[in-house]
Every structure is written in C-alpha cells, then in structure tokens.
C-alpha cells in the first residue's frame, strides 16, 4: 500500500476574484514507505504550496490526498493540528526553533503537546541525541549554538514523534556547503533506518541525495528522475541538466 497517495491535486488562490492564481494545476504521484523523494523546481513553481498541503497547513481546492489512507482534505483545523503532531515531522529552512526554550525542550515540544509521559520522552530522546550528535548541546539554548547544530535539533524535534512522513522545506538553504553535506548525510542515515522523507529544494546538490526527484513547473509535475545505481556526482549532473532544460522551457 502507498504511504501517500496524491491524485489530480489542484490549488487555486483567490478563486472568487477576477485574477485567480492557480498555484497547482495537476499533481499526481504516490509515495511508498521508506522512500526518499526530492521535489525540485524554481521559485513560484508550486513546491511550497504542495508541501504545505501535504503538511495540512493548507487545503487543496480539488483532487485527492491520502496519507496512510486518511483523507487530509476532510480534516478540520483542530483535527489537522492533532494529525500533524502525531503523524508528521517538519524541518524548515530557518530551523524555526523557539528561542525561549532550551534545545531539549524544543525537541520535547511536539511530545508535550501530545501529552506523552515524561519517562517516555526521556527514553526516546537518548538514542536520537546520540545518532544526531547533539548530546553536548542539548541543554543549551538555540541562540547559543551554530546553524548546523540548530538544524540537528530541529531534525530531532521532527523525528522524536516517530512520524509516518518527514517533510523538509529547503533544509540546507541557510547553511554553508560543509554543514549542508553533514545534514544531508544525516538524512541518508535516517532514511536508511526506514524513515520516509519528502524534501523540497532547489539545490541540485541536496536533491542528489534523494532516491527519486520530482520536477515541478507551473503547477504540474514535469519530469521524474530515479537515482538508481548512479553515484552522487553522476546523479547530480543529471539533475542539473534536467533543471536547465526545465528553465529553458523545452525538453
């Protein structure tokens, strides 16, 4: 069974105005458990809209979106909030950690909202902190650690709920290339443990870590690449080529 099933998804902003904006025109794809998918496209292509719909932060105008058989478009705002914290993990470009909370409390945040007992939280954080290499900084505050470390904290926050699906929005956008590679290696390892990941990015280097890459242009899926047995470098070149043709408008 598919983990995520999207068919004929559409999103129109200002539908009733004289200038409706069609952000998503026709999107259909499926995600199987354990997949690692990158969604690429230029700014304005509809990547973020798609991610927001999968994240239940926005609702689609038409089409079907099922996550683990749950119809996401039928959720009310409060149900969506509950669904988010139980089934989804998020990673953002600007980390979106709360400065008022210590790193540990930032990681605990979704569990606290889900009323998980303290003992369980402590049990879950230990292996996670070890695998993400954040044991040393866990009791500091986000403003006291580097960007790469903040993103590790954010990853821990996303993973601690053991989500069905990890959503990452330009996770390396605010980081230098060394730190980016570290974070992407981390994603690889997380994926190897069976975690399904969808990552939105416009960096070919970041996308080359994924096993499958979807290209979006003008609200449609334009092309799809599989990494197969390619090396990182080969795959990255292929992605870059596809992006070039995408930008130049022809195939």
């Amino acid at each position, binding site marked *: 069974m598919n983990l995520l099933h999207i068919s004929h998804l559409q999103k129109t902003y200002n539908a009733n105005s004289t200038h409706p904006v069609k952000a998503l025109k026709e999107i259909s794809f499926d995600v199987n458990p354990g997949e690692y998918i990158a969604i690429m496209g230029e700014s304005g292509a509809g990547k973020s809209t798609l991610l927001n719909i999968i*994240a239940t*932060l926005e609702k689609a105008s038409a089409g079907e979106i099922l996550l683990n058989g749950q119809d996401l478009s039928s959720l009310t*705002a*409060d149900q*969506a*909030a*509950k669904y*988010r*914290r*139980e089934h989804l993990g*998020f990673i*953002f470009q600007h980390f*979106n*950690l*709360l*400065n*008022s*909370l*210590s790193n540990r*409390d930032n990681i*605990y*945040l*979704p569990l*606290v*909202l*889900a*009323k998980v007992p*303290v003992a369980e*939280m402590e049990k879950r954080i230990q292996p996670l902190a070890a695998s993400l290499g954040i044991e040393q900084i866990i009791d500091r*505050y986000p*403003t*006291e650690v580097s960007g790469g470390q903040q993103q590790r904290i954010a990853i821990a*926050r996303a993973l601690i709920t053991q989500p069905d699906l990890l959503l990452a929005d330009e996770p390396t956008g605010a980081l230098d290339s060394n730190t980016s590679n570290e974070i992407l290696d981390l994603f690889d390892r997380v994926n190897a443990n069976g975690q399904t990941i969808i990552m939105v990015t416009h960096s070919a280097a970041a996308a080359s870590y994924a096993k499958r890459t979807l290209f979006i242009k003008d609200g449609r899926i334009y092309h799809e690449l599989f990494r197969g047995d390619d090396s990182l470098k080969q795959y990255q070149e292929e992605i870059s080529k596809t992006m070039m043709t995408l930008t130049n408008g022809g195939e």
Partner: protein
Amino acid sequence: MLFTKLVNSSFKRNLRVYGPYLVATTMLVAINYIFLAVRANESLKKLNTGAATSALLSLGFRFIFLVTIAFLIYVNRFLWQERRQEMGLYSMLGMTSRNLQWLTVIEKAYLLVCSLVGGLIIGVIFEKLAFLGLGYLLKIDHVSQSWLVPSALGETVLLMSLLFCLIMVIDLVKLHRMTPSQLWRPQTVKVKRHGKLYSFAGLVGLGLLIWAYYITVTIKPRISAIAHFFSAVLLLTVGTYLLFIIGSIVFLQFLQKQKHYYYQPRHFIAISGMRQRMEQNGASLATICLLCSSILVILFTSVTLYAGIGSTVKSYAPQNVVINSQRPLTAQQKALVNDTAKRHHATLTHQLTYTMAAPRYGYWKDDRFINQGDILHMDKQTSSSVILLTTKEYNRITKQHVKLADNQALAYANNKGHYGKVTINGHTYQAKRLNHYSLYFNPDHSIYTPSFYVINQLPKGTPTTTVTSFDYRMKGTQKQRIKFEGELQAELNMKNGQFTAKETISSLINGLYGGLVFIGILISLVLAITTTIVIYFKQISEGMADAERFATMQQVGLSEKETVKSIHSQVLMVFLLPLVGAVINLGFAFPAIRQIMIQLSLYNLPLMITVGVIVSISLLILYLVIYGLTTRVYRHIVEQ
C-alpha cells in the same frame, strides 16, 4: 516636500502606535496646563488656606511633570523600535545620516505640535471644569478663573518643547551610534543564564518586601510614623523591582525543574512563555505594579481624608465655638462675647462651661499610663494622651446620675482605648468602657487622640482647664460666619490653641484636604493614563515577539483553539500580576495609612475600608477595560 511626505506616510502606517501615543501626550499636556493654570489663579491665593493650597499645587505639579518626563522617555523607546527598521531601509536606499536626522526632527516636531494643540484645547476646556471642581472641594464659592490663562499657556508650551527636544536628542544620539545594517537587522533575544548570585538577589527582594510590610503593619501612631512609612515605601520599591525582575525568573526556573508539572501542554507553553516575558518585561511589570500601587494609595488617602473631614472637625470643635482657658471666663469677657454676637446678629445657644484636667501626654506601658506632662513635653515615645474628668462634672454636663467607687472609672476613647485595670498617675482604677460621650473632643488638636477617664476625684495638684462652649445661630454666608468667629477671637485676645471655632476650622481643613483630593485625583489620572499606555505598548511589542512563536507552535501541532487559549492565559497572567501586587501593597499599606490618618484625627475605620474597597474595585474595572481593549490589538498581531 519628500521628508514631510515620508513622515506622514510613516504616521499613517504606524497609527496603531502613534494614535495611543498622541492621545496620551495630549492628555498629559492638558493636565500639566490645568495644574499650571490653577496654580496661577489669583483669587485662590487670597484665601486663608491659599498658601497651603498653592504649595500643594506646586508639589503636585512637580510630581506630574516628573511622571511626564519619565513617560515620554520610556515610551519613546517603543516608538524608536517601530521606526528603527524604517530608518534602516531609508539609509540603505541612500539617505545620508543628515537626512535621517532631519526626518527625526520633523517627526518630533509633528508630535509636539499635535499634542500641544490637542492638549491645550482640551486643557482650556477642562481647566474651567477642574477649577469649579476644586472650588466645590474647597467648599468656597467666591473664587473665579478666566477662560484662558496666558502665563500657564506659555509655560506649558515652553516645558513641553523642552521635553520633546530632550527625546529628540536621545533619538539623534541613538541614530548617530548605529550603522545602517544595525538599524535594519532585528535584534535577537538571548535567553540569559543566571548564577547563584541571581537567586540570592531574588531572595533579597523577597526579604525587602517582607521587611517593608513588617514596618507598615507595626507602625505606631507616633511622630515618626510618616518617616517610617516613607522608608517602607523605599524598601517596597526596591523589593518590588527585585522580586519582579529576578524573583519571578527564579520561581519559573524552579517550576521548569519540576518535570511532571512542566511537561504538560498548558504549563509548558505558559511557563516558558512567562519566563521569556519576565526576562524582558520584569522591570516594566514592576513599574506598572508600583504605578497601580501609587494610584491606589494616593486616591485612598486623599478620598478618606476628605470624606473624614466631618469627624475631624467634630473632634476639634464639638460645638460651634469652644474656648479652653485656665479660669472660667470673666464677666467682662462674657460681655464681650455677647456684644460681638449682637453686632453680628448672632444668637447664642447651648452654652456650657465645665472644668476638666488638662490633657496629659505620655505612653502606655501595659496598663500603666506613663505621664510625660503637657503637649510641650512630647517626645518620640509619646503615643497617647489622657484627660481626667470628675464624676460630678460628668453628671452635670451629660445630665446623668452616675455613682462610682473611688477605684472605679468610666473610660471613653474613639481610637483603641485602655479599659479594665488601668493605672493613671499612680492610682489604679477598674475602668468601664463608655460607648458614647457626646462632648468628646481633642482640645489641643494634637495628633494623639485623648482618652477620657471619669473618676471621683482628680489627684492633688492636677492642672485643670475650663471649657466654655456654645453654638450660635446667625443668618448669613460662610464668609460672614468666619468673620464673626475671627472677630470674637480677636476681642477675647486668645491664641489658636485656646479658641476653636467650627466654621473657621472646617473651612481651613476643607481648604487643605480639598486641595489634597484635587491633586490626588489629577495625579491618579496622570498615573492611570501613563499606566494604560505602558500596558498598551507592552502588549504590542509582546504581540510581535509572540507572533513568531505561535506560528512555530502551530506548525508543530498546536491547534488554533489551544493557541488562543494559551495567549489568553498568558496575557491575563502578565496583566493581573501587577494589579494583584498593587492590591496586596494597599492591603499592607492600610494599617500604616490608618495610623497616619489617626494623627490627622480621623478614626473612622468602616469609612476607610469602604473607600479602600471602592478605590480598588474601580481600578480593577478600569484595568480590565484596558486589558480587553489591548488584548484585541495583541490577538490581531499574533493571529496575522
């Protein structure tokens, strides 16, 4: 011109900030003008309490002006934060620092002109009203005030211009110190770590507060009471700041360590949010708390004093005219009284003459009265006075037939009295409490309320005084009555200590306390306005900081309902904290104020409690209204 256009558009965009700011400065200009105009009034100076009233007005004005300065400087910080980014953008777009300075000057000039014009119009309208109110409070009808007071207008314009120059200079210095990128970049707030010393300071704050409360609760009605009260105020101020700034953080840190309590959705958001708020707002909240406390104490004191004028006058002069003399009035003096009354068409009634022991001052040691002598022998230990009256005289003037044994006494005091076994001047009596004594009074008008003891025989060598009192009826105004009383005193050639006339004393006290109430109300108004604005700006700046936090929380899975709920509980907590503090402060100030009131001859406890409750409830209502209004703005910002 480009600059005025830019300033104009910035005003329009930031109306949410500038609007309330202008309302507040306008009101402050108006109240400053009202004070100056009332102070400049000539007819007020001619009253017999004129000197006291204008001294009070000067004092009040100075206070209000100080509050105005503090307010302008404080709120200017918020305006600066609002404008900082805008300035940064302009400078990135190529404005020179001279251009930016020019912008600042224009902005301040705009604000000054708007608040002066608005404030003076409102001031002129309400000054007349305020003056009528003052006349009413002073219970006088022969004062007048013109519509415009040019000298006060000039002074207000001058003082306000100076103040705005001051804050303009502050802004210019800040501008000068910052590079464009500093202007542009928003400041990130770091969570501070605090060591052991910090917790210690929090404990010191708590200690100071307890000390202050201890002083107020144990104040005795002595001359030193006022000095004690002020030292308590000082301790309270320092203690409140320490407790709000540090104590709150220490407490929240403690809560954060209680894992099972802390890691529950409601507590988690509230405690971490509160901690950040207190780190940033501890000082502001302490200020709000102290402002509210001052409003409560000032209003409470002045209103109680004013409402108690009747009982004070009664204790000074139980009848229209009361004369204390060593010997009974001579025939010649009686004739003088009658002649003067005749000339003023006054009819004398209820004439009464009796002899009692002169008031003795001292203090109580258990049930023994330590006699220090007459009023001139008072010292720091003095805390009460005693007047002895023979049974014979008592029976005659109250038309009763009381029989006492030699070791028995009747006692009356309208403050806390000593009853049962008492020892006075070496004699021990069994004193029975009298519930009523119509001729009770305080002959020396001293701050130590006398207790009356009725006994069979005055001890040998007790100095006595003769009280001659009467009422009079006459047609005529208050002014004529005062004139009659004044003439009577002059004819008898008696000092103020010997001769007390009700109309004179009541107009004197009215003049004094009326002025106090007037100033108390205006000061409370100023404090209320500034408090409101401070709260408002707090809410706005908090809202902006919280908007981001709540956005993140919603992404992680906080529902909208939970968001709204936690916003409310946090805002309410932050809001109620200072008010609760203020009411507690009033509660502890109450006994101290009461002792000071007793010195001013006011003993009416139920009245004080009523006034205290009414004042507190009014402040609470006002506060909740402000809360409701500002929370809407806050939510609007957060939910964007």
